[in-house]
């Protein structure tokens, strides 16, 4: 009998305890913020913008009357601090702002240049709701305007769009995949200096009209976010890198420089590499380049100064040869490989020079030099941050074209006038 009573009491207790606890919340208790932006404020110190997912609209695509329910809303507020802004906003949206699904933190270039990320937003890392995998973006426009535009113009959901941007870092190599954890580790790091994604709004004004003649021709990869000559599609562009010295943004890297930076950091996955045809420079060759393995870096000290010997190893796949010259032949493939190696070597050396001029190690050379120090005391005493200008580097590039696409040779094009080049 006593056993039965015990079981019944236990079951009652389990039932009561299983109902809920203090932390129970329904999904619609929260307003899920997908992007947070910060600019300099007018009415108060900072201007915070929050892009909030509209749970009713997401996925359903329902229309009420003629109006399609927006997938998101953007709220902007001037406030002295982030959490103050959040607290005040909660009173007006009748739900609690929740940051568990926040994908990006966006700061304006002005704030980045003044080195006020931590002051405005950086301490957010202490906040349990913010995931450290949140992307860190420096916007060439105001963060407010960026967030207003940061939504899909092509038919995918907002969340899919925002995740898709990050994936493109690995597909193109034109911007780094920098998350809050990376940025936070590097601002405190004595191994290297931080970088962030550079992004901007393209108002499509950079695409010249047909017939315009006095247009300055700049290579696509040498442009920066928001300046790509195109029209249509999403207005937001992720392109290039913001380089920081501590917390202060000191430089911007264009698309090509970013690709080389990623290669030197060992973070380049793949991307299309286009070069002038070595035999017909007016035409182009496109290859899909992939980093075969992380770069081999040897460090030696000469007269107390570090010398880095870097070897980049890349695999290539021919995508297109405009000239139809048979580079895929064994006798010519080496010629093409050497041409690519030369270009990458020159660009890498130029980027290292840029890092030395800035005296900022955004190439993660510190990761290799630290191995020469047995204890933390000796490493901290050496103080690598700030010594980049003393470094010397040699770069060796090894490109192997292993795939040639679906064609094993390029035949000449024939016309009435015979073979055409």
């Amino acid at each position, binding site marked *: 009998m006593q056993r039965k009573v015990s079981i019944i009491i236990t079951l009652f207790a389990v039932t009561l*305890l299983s109902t809920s*606890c*203090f*932390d129970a919340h329904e999904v619609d208790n929260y307003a899920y913020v997908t992007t947070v932006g910060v600019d300099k404020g007018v009415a108060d110190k900072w201007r915070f913008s929050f892009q909030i997912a509209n749970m009713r609209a997401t996925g359903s695509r329902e229309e009420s009357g003629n109006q399609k329910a927006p997938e998101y809303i953007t709220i902007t507020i001037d406030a002295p601090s982030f959490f103050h802004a959040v607290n005040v906003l909660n009173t007006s949206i009748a739900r609690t702002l929740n940051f568990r699904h926040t994908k990006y933190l966006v700061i304006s270039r002005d704030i980045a240049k003044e080195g006020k990320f931590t002051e405005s937003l950086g301490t957010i890392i202490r906040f*349990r709701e913010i*995931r*450290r*995998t949140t992307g860190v973006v420096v916007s060439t426009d105001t963060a407010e305007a960026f967030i207003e535009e940061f939504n899909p113009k092509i038919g995918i959901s907002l969340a899919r769009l925002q*995740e898709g941007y990050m*994936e493109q870092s690995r597909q193109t190599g034109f911007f780094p995949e920098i998350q809050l*954890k990376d940025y*936070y*580790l590097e601002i*405190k*790091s*004595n*191994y290297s200096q931080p970088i962030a994604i550079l992004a901007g709004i393209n108002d499509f004004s950079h695409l010249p009209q047909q017939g315009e003649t006095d247009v300055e021709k700049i290579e696509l990869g040498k442009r920066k976010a928001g300046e790509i000559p195109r029209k249509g599609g999403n207005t937001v562009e992720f392109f290039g890198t913001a380089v920081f010295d501590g917390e202060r943004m000191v430089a911007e890297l264009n698309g090509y420089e970013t690709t080389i930076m990623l290669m030197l950091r060992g973070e380049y996955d793949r991307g299309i590499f286009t070069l002038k045809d070595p035999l017909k420079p007016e035409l182009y060759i496109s290859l899909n380049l992939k980093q075969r393995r992380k770069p081999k870096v040897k460090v030696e000290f000469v007269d107390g100064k570090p010398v880095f010997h870097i070897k980049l190893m890349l695999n290539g796949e021919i995508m297109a040869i405009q000239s139809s010259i048979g580079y895929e032949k064994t006798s010519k493939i080496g010629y093409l490989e050497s041409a690519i190696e030369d270009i990458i070597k020159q660009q890498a050396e130029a980027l290292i020079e840029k890092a030395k001029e800035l005296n900022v190690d955004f190439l993660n050379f*510190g*990761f*290799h030099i*630290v*191995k020469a*120090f*047995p*204890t*933390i*005391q*000796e*490493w901290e005493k050496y103080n690598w941050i700030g010594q980049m200008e003393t470094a010397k580097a040699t770069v060796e590039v090894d490109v192997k074209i292993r795939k040639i696409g679906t064609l094993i040779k390029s035949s000449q094009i024939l016309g009435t006038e015979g073979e055409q080049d």
Partner: protein
Amino acid sequence: MNEGKVGNIEMICLIVNAIVCKAFFTSVAAVIQKVGTAGWYMTLISAAVSLAVFGLMYIMIRAYEGKNILEIYDEIVGKKAGRLLTLVSCMILFLSASITLREFTDATNVYLLHVSPPGYIVGMFIIAMIVVCFFGIEGLARTAKFFSYILLINFLIVMVLSIQHYQIYRLYPLLGYGLGNTVKNGIMRSSAYGEIILIGIFAKALNNTKDAGKIGLKCLILGGLFIAQILFSVIASFPYFTAAELADPLYIMVSLIEYGRFFQRVEVIFIFTWNLSTLIGLTAIFYGAVISYCHAFDIKDKRPIIISFAISIYAATLIIPSITIILDYVVPTLRDYGWVGFYSPIFIAIIIWFFFKRGKQTYAEKS
């Protein structure tokens, strides 16, 4: 209460959980603060020191076959002094359980149950501990073995998945703050494995007390490898200056796991490991404290003592007003000086046995 008998693997599961569960909380950051990048092998030094002390305890267990370490204390130093040594063990186990439970509560409060009052979390946890303790050491050990395989698989999964964040350069400078500092801290922090004394306390539950030696050896090897793996993965995932800042580096490391759009936010797997391992480990420590207390005062029925100990541990866990006091004073003191509580009864007993009892024992055996 019928204590029953415990198999060797069950005992290993129990003790390894008791040792390893502490590594889920603030201790990892504290170790990195002290020894920097050398933390992952510092803990192996601690394990080696604990193994040496365990060896001393095992000598006594072999000398007094069929007895647990508490009875051996009584034999060697007499009932009154033995009671004192037993109470020292009881006290340190009680403190260890309450401090680790407080760490668990604060971590749960920070990451999972933000609104729930600490008293509620501690209360729920203690109720679970009481239920398991009422089944005695046999029930406890069976539960430990049953869950340990699942916990091991979970642990291995999260460790393997975390490899994406490992950066080998973060292990450099290899010697941390210096070899001397690493060895010193390794010796001082041997209390991380202090729960190995539970083998002595639970020795009579084994089928043969002589098995305690190989069980202890395996527990320390496994415990050392698990803690070293945890420290290694945290140090490889975060630079030493950042890892030392984090309240719960292991949880944060797991929360970073992200393989594509669909495979992310897997910390729930870790939470399962974290909760269950802590429950099993702390229940073992708590039960060890109860057994020690009952032995000191010759109490046969443990159930009232379990209840009163549970109430005491509830109070002790919540008496510290804030997490900063825990982090600044309580946990560092326990980890740095806990070895005094865990190991001094063994040192005292072995010295007395060696100089005063061993000869007599040998003579008695020969004659």
